[in-house]
C-alpha cells in the first residue's frame, strides 16, 4: 500500500512537471499531451491522497487501540492492588474480631516463646506436665503443620523443639510425649 502511495505521488509530480518543461513544443500533439499528462497527474495525486488519508486514519485507530490497551493494563493493576489491600484489611479485621480466648491463648503462647532467656529456647519442660499448656498446644500445632508439609521428625526436633546435637535424644522423647499427649486426648 505504501509502495503504491509513493509511486502515485512520484508519478503525479513527474506527470505534472515533465510534459510542461521537457516536451518539444514543435510537436503537433504537444498541447494534447500536456493536457492528458496534467489530467493524469491530478488523478494520481488524488488517488495517492486518498490512500494516504486511509493509512493515516488506520494508524490513528491503531494508536487509539494501543492507548486503550495501556489504560486497561493500568486499570487492571490498580484494581488488583486495591483488591489485595482490601483482602489484607479484611484478614486483619477478622483477626481482631476473633474471640478473646483465642487471642489470649495466642498471646500467652507468644509470650512463652519470646520471654525465654536463651536466644534459642529449649523446650525442656514443656511436655512433662500432665496438663497441656498453651505453649504445648502451639508446639503441637506447629508439629502438625510440619508433618502435613512432609517434614521429618529430625527436622521437627531440631527446628521446632530446638534440641540439636547432644540433646537430640531428649528431643525425640519429648516429641513422642507431645504426640502421645495430644493424640491420646483426641
Amino acid at each position, binding site marked *: 500500500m505504501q509502495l503504491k502511495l509513493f509511486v502515485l505521488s512520484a508519478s503525479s509530480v513527474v506527470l505534472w512537471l515533465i510534459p*510542461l518543461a521537457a516536451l518539444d513544443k514543435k510537436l503537433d500533439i504537444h498541447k494534447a499531451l500536456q493536457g492528458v499528462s496534467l489530467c493524469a*497527474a491530478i488523478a494520481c495525486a488524488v488517488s495517492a491522497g486518498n490512500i494516504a488519508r486511509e493509512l493515516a486514519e488506520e494508524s490513528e485507530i491503531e494508536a487509539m487501540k494501543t492507548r486503550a490497551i495501556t489504560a486497561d493494563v493500568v486499570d487492571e493493576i490498580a484494581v488488583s492492588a486495591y483488591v489485595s489491600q482490601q483482602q489484607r484489611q479484611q484478614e486483619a479485621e477478622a483477626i481482631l474480631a476473633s474471640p478473646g480466648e483465642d487471642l489470649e491463648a495466642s498471646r500467652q503462647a507468644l509470650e512463652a516463646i519470646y520471654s525465654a532467656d536463651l536466644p534459642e529456647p529449649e523446650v525442656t519442660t514443656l511436655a512433662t506436665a500432665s496438663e497441656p499448656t498453651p505453649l504445648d498446644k502451639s508446639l503441637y500445632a506447629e508439629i502438625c503443620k510440619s508433618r502435613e508439609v512432609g517434614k521429618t521428625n529430625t527436622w521437627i526436633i531440631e527446628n521446632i523443639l530446638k534440641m540439636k546435637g547432644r540433646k537430640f535424644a531428649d528431643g525425640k522423647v519429648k516429641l513422642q510425649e507431645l504426640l502421645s499427649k495430644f493424640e491420646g486426648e483426641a
Partner: protein
Amino acid sequence: MKAMYLANYFVAGCVAFSLLGWIASLHPMAMKAVLFLLAAIAIAWGLSWLLDYSLSKLLKISVADLQALLIGGLAMLLIGLGVFICS
C-alpha cells in the same frame, strides 16, 4: 502519513491550476473564461479572508483551519500557474 496526504492534495491543487493555465492557452476565449474564473476565485478568496469568523462558524471548522485552507489555496494557485507560465 497525514503530511503525505496533505502534500498529495496540495500537488493535486497545483496541477489543477496548471491545467487551468493549459486550458487558457488553448484559445483566446478560453483565456478570457479562465481570467474571469480567476477573478471570481480572487474575490471569493478575499471575502473569505475578511469574513473568516462567520465562515468558520458556517463551515464548522476553526478559524485557523480556514485560514490555513485559504493560504494553501493561494499557494496552489501561485505555484500551479507559476509552473505553467514559466515552462
